[in-house]
C-alpha cells in the first residue's frame, strides 16, 4: 500500500514551555506540503500552567483528530517521564521517540516524590512497544549552537525514521513557513541533525 493511503496517528507529549505545539504544527505543515490529509489537535488553557501539554497529529486516512488509548502509531515525548505517562496511548506496534532530558515535577524538586531512574523508565516502555528511540535532543541542539531547538531535533528524528509520508524537504519547507527568517538557520541544522539520527535508526 502506498504510504499516502495509510493512516498515521502521532501523539506528542511534553511539559509547558517545551515547544510541543510548535513541533506539532511543523509536522502538520510538512504533511500539507506533501499533499497528505492532516488534522492536528491541541489542548490550551489550564494545561499550560506548568502542566503536561499533549497534542496529536493524524494524517493519511486517519481523520479522527484525537488518538484513543492504544491507537498511537508513534509517540513523541519531549520528556522521558511523559513518555511513560503516554503508555496508555501505545500498543505493541507503537514506535516511541523520547528525549532523555528530565524536567523535574514540583513534587520531585521539593522532595515529596522521587523522579524514577531513567533506565527504569525506559524499561517500563521498551518491552511493551515496537521500539523505543532515545534522543539526546538537548545535547544535539546545544552542540549545533541551537539550544532552543531541541523540539525541532525531535521532529527531525521523527522525519528521519521514514515512517511518515513526508520527505525531508517537506519538513524543511514547513520550517520555512513557521519559523521567522532570522531563526531559520539554526533550526534547519537542528532538523538535519535529528533527521540523520533518525535515519540511522530506521
Amino acid at each position, binding site marked *: 500500500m502506498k504510504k499516502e493511503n495509510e493512516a498515521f496517528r502521532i501523539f506528542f507529549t511534553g511539559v509547558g514551555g517545551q515547544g510541543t505545539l510548535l513541533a506539532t504544527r511543523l509536522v502538520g505543515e510538512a504533511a500539507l506540503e506533501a499533499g497528505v490529509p*492532516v488534522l*492536528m489537535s491541541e*489542548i490550551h488553557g489550564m494545561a499550560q*500552567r506548568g502542566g503536561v501539554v499533549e497534542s496529536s497529529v493524524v494524517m493519511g486516512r486517519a481523520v479522527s483528530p484525537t488518538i484513543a488509548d492504544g491507537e498511537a502509531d508513534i509517540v513523541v515525548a519531549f520528556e522521558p517521564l511523559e513518555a*511513560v505517562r*503516554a503508555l496508555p496511548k*501505545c500498543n505493541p506496534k507503537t514506535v516511541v521517540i523520547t528525549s532523555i532530558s528530565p524536567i523535574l*515535577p514540583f*513534587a520531585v524538586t521539593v522532595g515529596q516524590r522521587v523522579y524514577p531512574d531513567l533506565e527504569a523508565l525506559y524499561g517500563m516502555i521498551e518491552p511493551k512497544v515496537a521500539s523505543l528511540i532515545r534522543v539526546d535532543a538537548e545535547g544535539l541542539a546545544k552542540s549545533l549552537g541551537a539550544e532552543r531547538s531541541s523540539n525541532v531535533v525531535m521532529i527531525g528524528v521523527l522525519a528521519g525514521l521514514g515512517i511518515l509520508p513526508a520527505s525531508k524537504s517537506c519538513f524543511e519547507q514547513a520550517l520555512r513557513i513557521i519559523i521567522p527568517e532570522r531563526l531559520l538557520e539554526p533550526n534547519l541544522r537542528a532538523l538535519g541533525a535529528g533527521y540523520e539520527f533518525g535515519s540511522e535508526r530506521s
Partner: protein
Amino acid sequence: MHELLIEQTQRPQLLLGNEAIVRGALESGVGFVAAYPGTPSSEIVDRFAQLGGEAGIYVEYSVNEKVSMEVSAAAAICGVRSLCAMKHVGLNVAADAFMTLSYVGVKAGMVIVVADDPFLHSSQNEQDTRYYAKLSGIPMLEPATPQEAYRMVIEAFRISEKFRTPCLLRTTTRVNHCRGPVEIGTIPPARGFSGEFKKDPFNLVTLPAVGRKLRLALLDRTQRLREESEGSPLNFVSGTGDLGIITSGVSHLHVLDAVRSMGLEDKVKILKLGFTHPQPKALITEFLAGVAKALVVEEVEPFIEEAAKVCAQESKLSVEIAGKGKGLVPQAFELDSVKVKKAIGNFFGIAYEPPNVIDAPDLPQRPPNLCPGCPHRATYYAVKKVFGEEAIYPTDIGCYTLGILPPLNAADFLICMGSGVSTAGGFSKVQDRPVVPFIGDSTFFHAGVPGLINAVSNGHKILLVILDNGTTAMTGHQPHPGVELTEKGRIEPKVSLERLVRGCGVTLVETINPLQVKKSQQVIRDFKNKINEAGVGVIISKSPCPLFENRMTKKKKKIVFRTDESKSCAECKKCITELGCPAFFVESSDGVEHVFIDESLCMGCSVCSQICDSISPKRI
C-alpha cells in the same frame, strides 16, 4: 499584513478552527465583533483584535458575554454584520439576551459562536449548547473540522441574513483547537462598520403585545428554517448498506475512522448532520426508513437521538434506534474512535476487539500551578496567615482557582463566574464562620459587581478580596476595563476598581500590594476586626501578573533570590509547606536537606525573602 488577511491561495492554509472561523467571517464581510474571552473560544476575538484595525472592523473585548451579544445585536439591527463568540457557560450569562433576540431578530447577518468543552478540559461543567438552539428557536450549524468551521460561518451569515435571525455556530474544543488545512476564498473590500438605525418600536421593543406577535413569527420562521435545513448540503448521506449511523460534529470523524478500520464501508450508511437546528425531520425519517437499525453517535447529550426517535414515532417506523439510550455511546466526556467502534460492534453485532490498554505506572504528577512570582500566591499566603482554616473561602474563575492546591488550600466553593461574592453573602447569613471570598479583577467586572451590591444592601458580612493582576490572565492576557499596562505604556484605568467598589456602597476598602507581606497581613488583620461592624469589607490586592507585565514593559529581571547555603532547612521548609513557589527545590547533602531557588524560574518577587531570613536578593 496579518496572516489571516492574506489573499486567496492555491495551497490550503493550516488554520486553527478558531482562525478558520475568523477567516470565514472576514470573507462574509463581518464589520463588528465583540466577545469576552473563554477557553476554547478565545482565539477568535484575539485574532480579530490583532487584525481589526487593518481590516476596518470594530472589535471589542466586552465586559461579559451578555454585553457582547447585546452590542453585536445592536450592530446587526443597524445593518452591520456582526459576530460574538463565547464558551458554552458564557451562553448561560448571555441567555437572557439570546432568548429574546430570537424574537426581535436582526437586519444584517449575526453569528453567535458558542464553544462547548466536552471532557471539561478548561471548564466547570460539560453542557450541551444544542438545547439552547431548540429552546430559543435560533438556527444552529455544527462543524467537525476547521474547513467545515470556515464554510459554516459563511453559511451561518447567509442563513442569518436570509431569515433575519441570529445564527448559532456550535463548536467543541476539538474543532476550536484543531488545526487543519483550509481552502480559503477572497475577502470583500472593507465596508466599515457604519450602519443605520430605523425606528420601528412595534417590532423592536418587546412589550408583551409585541412579544406575542413576534412569538408567532418565530414559530413560523422555525418552520421555514426547517425547510432550509431539509435542503441544506450541510446534511448529507455517505456510504451504502442497511446499517445506519446518524452523527454530527467531531463524532463524524470518529465514525469515519471506525467504519474504515472495521472494514464496514459497504455495510454502513452515514447521515452526517451539520444543520442541526431546526432538524431536517424528513431527511432523518427517510434515512431511518432505509436502514435496518440506526445508531446515533454524538457527544454529550442525546440531542439528535431524541429527534430521530420522534421522527420514527411520527412516521410509525419500527426501526431500532440506539445511542445514549441503550448506554452504547457514553454520555459523559469526549468520544474517540475506540468508543465508537465498541458501540458499533455491540449494536450491529460485529466482532471488535478493543486494544489492550497499557496502564501507566504511578508517576509523579504535574498539576498546573500558580506561576513563580504570581501575586495570587502572596495574597493567599497573607489571608491564610490571618484567617487560617477557620474561614470559608468561596472562590471564582481564573488562574487563582488554582489556590485550591496545597499548600495554599484557599478555595472552598465555586459554581460559576461571580459566584464567589454572592455565595459568600449566603454563607454569612446561615453560619458563623468568617467568609472571605476571592475574585479576580476581570471576573469582578464580568459578574462580581451585582453580588457586591447585593451584599452591601442586604447587610451580609463578608471580606471580599479582589485579586487584581491587571489583566484577564487565564485566557491569555486580554484587556478589561481596569487595565493600566499596555504595550504603549501605563494608562489611567478607564474604570478604577477602587472607585467602583466604593460606588457599590462599600466604605471599608483598601488597596494593598500583596508582595509586601507584613503590611498586607496587617491590613487583613485590621479588616478582620472591622467587618463585624462594617458588614462588607473589600481588599483590592493589586500587583500585575508578572508574565503580562514582562510582555507589556519588556523589562528584564534584575534580581533573583537565593537561600543561605550555610544554614540548614531541615527543621523548617515553611517556604515549601506554606508558600510553595515552583522555583524552590530541595537537595540533601550528608543527609541534611536544604532548599534552593532555581534562578531561571525565580521572578524576583521577594515574597519568600520576607518570610525567611535565610533568603536574600542577588543582582543578575
